């Protein structure tokens, strides 16, 4: 029906206006700012970026912390959903698992800090139990160079998000596929790969992509739990953006644009391929 099509395009206007004027414009302006120098266009800022040792260290550090956090969150989240999906159908159970989503990331970071710092809760418990004699014997888990505290915070905070994303798949996942697989002689391990994995893979990829993009450039948690070196990328970019010298500002733009484009491109590839697969699966079911 033609009138309906007209009607519907009209409904997209608010979303498109938002997209063009906020994220779209922001990205374009950041991109322009990163190649502008005086009145000319140059990629010099990107060259400068690669000559900065701070950038490379911080890039690698962010990459490590982000990858570990993302993978652990996905695995633990999947484990919880797989083990407890019948229970998680009930609202009260869902709500218990989703408690960490109630508070901001920085609150969770503070919580991790007060539980795991050397005079924190667990250190105290260990001391009372007589396992350690002094608080300095408690391992340094927050504000240390390896980013353990940061990883801990993200994994803890994101596991509920992973369950939120995966639960709908598990509730709609038809049991019969698994039954057929086991009838045909597949063990539980094989049955998982054949009858479950193809359905959850697209959602896992999507969730992982969201987490990765979010953690890579998040500022709040590393600001509370990190150290001055190595820094997560967002901290470095923020420093450059607000540093007294104007010459550092283009570096902030260049670093963030570079990371943004990199992440964006990889995500697009991943989602493009999994979407194809997903279409295949949905069509397969309907036939």
């Amino acid at each position: 029906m033609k009138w309906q099509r007209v009607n519907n395009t009209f409904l997209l206007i608010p979303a498109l206006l938002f997209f063009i004027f906020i994220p779209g414009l922001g990205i374009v302006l950041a991109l322009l700012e990163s190649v502008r120098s005086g009145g000319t266009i140059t990629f010099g800022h990107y060259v400068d970026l690669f000559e900065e040792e701070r950038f490379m260290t911080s890039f690698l550090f962010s990459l490590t912390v982000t990858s570990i956090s993302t993978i652990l969150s996905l695995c633990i989240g999947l484990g919880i959903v797989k083990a407890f999906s019948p229970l998680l159908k009930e609202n009260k159970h869902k709500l218990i698992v989703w408690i960490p989503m109630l508070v901001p990331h920085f609150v969770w970071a503070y919580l991790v800090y007060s539980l795991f710092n050397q005079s924190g809760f667990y250190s105290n418990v260990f001391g009372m139990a007589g396992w350690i004699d002094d608080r300095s014997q408690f391992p340094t888990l927050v504000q240390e160079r390896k980013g353990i505290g940061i990883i801990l915070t993200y994994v803890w905070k994101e596991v509920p998000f992973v369950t939120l994303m995966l639960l709908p798949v598990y509730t709609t996942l038809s049991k019969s596929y698994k039954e057929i697989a086991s009838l045909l002689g597949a063990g539980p391990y094989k049955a998982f790969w054949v009858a479950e994995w193809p359905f959850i893979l697209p959602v896992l990829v999507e969730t992982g992509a969201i987490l990765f993009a979010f953690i890579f450039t998040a500022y709040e948690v590393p600001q509370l739990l990190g150290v001055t070196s190595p820094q997560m990328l967002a901290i470095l970019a923020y420093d450059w953006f607000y540093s007294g010298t104007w010459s550092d500002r283009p570096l902030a733009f260049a670093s963030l644009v570079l990371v943004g484009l990199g992440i964006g491109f990889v995500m697009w590839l991943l989602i493009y391929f999994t979407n194809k697969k997903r279409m295949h699966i949905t069509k397969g079911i309907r036939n």
Partner: protein
Amino acid sequence: MRKLLFYIISFLLFVFPLLFLVYKSFFGLWRWGSPVPVEPGIRAWQVLINEGQFVDAIGASVWIAIVVLSINLLIGVTSGRVFSLSSYRGKSIVEALLMLPLFLPVLVVAIGLHITFIRYGLADHWTGVALVHLVPTIPYSIKMFKTGYERIGTKLIEQSAMLGGSAFQRFYHIELPLLLPSIRSVLFLTIVISLSQYVLTAIIGGGNVVTLSMVYYPFTDTADEAVMAAFSIVFALIPIMLYIILEGCLKFLLPYQHPRGRKNL
């Protein structure tokens, strides 16, 4: 057995941290090597309430969250409807574009918009902050309303159209009540995400827009642990309170909200 295991795991991972914060806000610091404090006190909460900036910051945060929520509902409902109920050429591209902010660093958007926002007087003002808070929230809202509309399906809407319902009647009597679960999730998520933004608020607000997260950060260095714990709990309480209030409003606004006896329709 499985249930027991579930309760143990979720208590340790999810319930205990919250209880720990509550405990800490009343009992204060547990000095290393000394016995567990057992004398509760409401000092931390009093300190918090008497801190002048705190109450103002709640006001600013709540106001921004509500503005962000309203725009989210508008964009979410309209585009969610298009994405689930109609198909046209290029739909998947538009959809992917609108999801893009989820997969890109928000920090890029914030620093990119910074100068433009200054030029148009949006920076250092709550409007700019609210606009930039839309970036991490809108994609989720669109997603949720899309699922909501998929759940409704086209049949009820077509039937109503055949019986002569106008677009508005259809929306009010059919879509809105059935969208309630989506509205609830969007409500909650948007408010929590908006409260969570520190760096976006700091850059665009330039220190002039004082939301709760802006007060929280300097506190982490100085204030005592009991106050920090109490402050942390406030971050969970605000979305819950707002949820209860807005749920009450929805009861009045939406039709068919008297579920007694009709619950299992």
